[in-house]
């Protein structure tokens, strides 16, 4: 009986994960480009609180939940500095270029929102 319940619970968890990871389920994309292009970008970037894997060859495309995310950079001493907001829309891609040469790094939105300097939209 316990084994059956365990199996059912596992099936429910796997099902929930599949549903949550389904690309069409209210998810969009963020394209982050770093300039200058390097094999692996050294600047640590964060989307909200999640640290991103080092960006390889100057570009990364990330699947994210719909909403507004904060792109931040490591400002040293464990603090983060806000670079810009990124609006993620369902099945759309929002592109942002980060100039990592500057201190702090600077966002360049491909398309700007109402607050063009700080919000990138798709």
């Amino acid at each position, binding site marked *: 009986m316990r084994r059956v319940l365990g199996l059912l619970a596992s099936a429910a968890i796997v099902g929930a994960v599949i549903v949550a*990871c389904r*690309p*069409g389920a209210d*998810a*969009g*994309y963020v*394209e982050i480009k770093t300039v200058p292009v390097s094999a692996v970008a050294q600047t640590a970037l964060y989307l909200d609180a999640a640290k991103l*894997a080092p960006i390889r*060859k100057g*570009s*990364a*495309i*990330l*699947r994210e939940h719909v909403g507004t995310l904060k792109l931040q950079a490591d400002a040293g001493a464990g603090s983060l500095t806000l670079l810009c907001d990124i609006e993620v829309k369902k*099945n*759309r*891609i929002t*592109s942002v270029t980060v100039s990592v040469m500057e201190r702090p790094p600077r966002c360049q939105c491909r398309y700007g929102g109402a607050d063009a300097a700080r919000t990138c939209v*798709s």
Partner: protein
Amino acid sequence: MTTSLFVGASRTRAGIAIAALFAVGLALSASLARADDAGAGKAASPVEEFSEQLEAFQKSVPDLNKSIQDSTGAIDSITDVDKARAEIDKLRETVSTLLGAVSDNGPVSQLGIKALNHVHDKLKALAQESRFKPEERQFLTDRWRKLQEETESATRELDDARAQFASLLQTLQQSEDFIGELIEIRQAEKALEVIRSLTRDIRDASSQLNKLIGGIKPPGA
């Protein structure tokens, strides 16, 4: 007496002749009556023809009505602008699903990264391995290096696919209005085809109706 006999005989002959004439007349009239009947049968043929044509026309009318209804429905749906938008959304969703698989934090990319990390770990471990003879170690290292090259090549292909899908999604976004117009043009072409098909059906029905009307001949015409 002779005279009376002769008269009697001639009377009898006359009676026979009259009877014969009467019989011939009866036979003729019967034959004429049969001929009339046969003539009446031939006169019914146009009626049958008319009924057949009428029946065929009546059968074709519901088909035509259905065709008109279907065509109206099809044109309504084809000229629906929201449907064109829905088509773009569907297209975007398809591309998005593909991009989801190959995005940097997607399942396929993660698999590629894991595979590469594993190869790197194995190469590092082999470099410090002391269990094998130098030639054995060299052989294993070569095999892992080959695997590394192939895995890197596969991940490069993944990068290309990612860039391609991302670019496609961006094109869909940037040219949304133009693509919408293209879809509407394609729909209008479909609508035109439906109208042409309907026109053909109506023309066929009209020709059938003309045939039917042409078959109606008043008596004596």
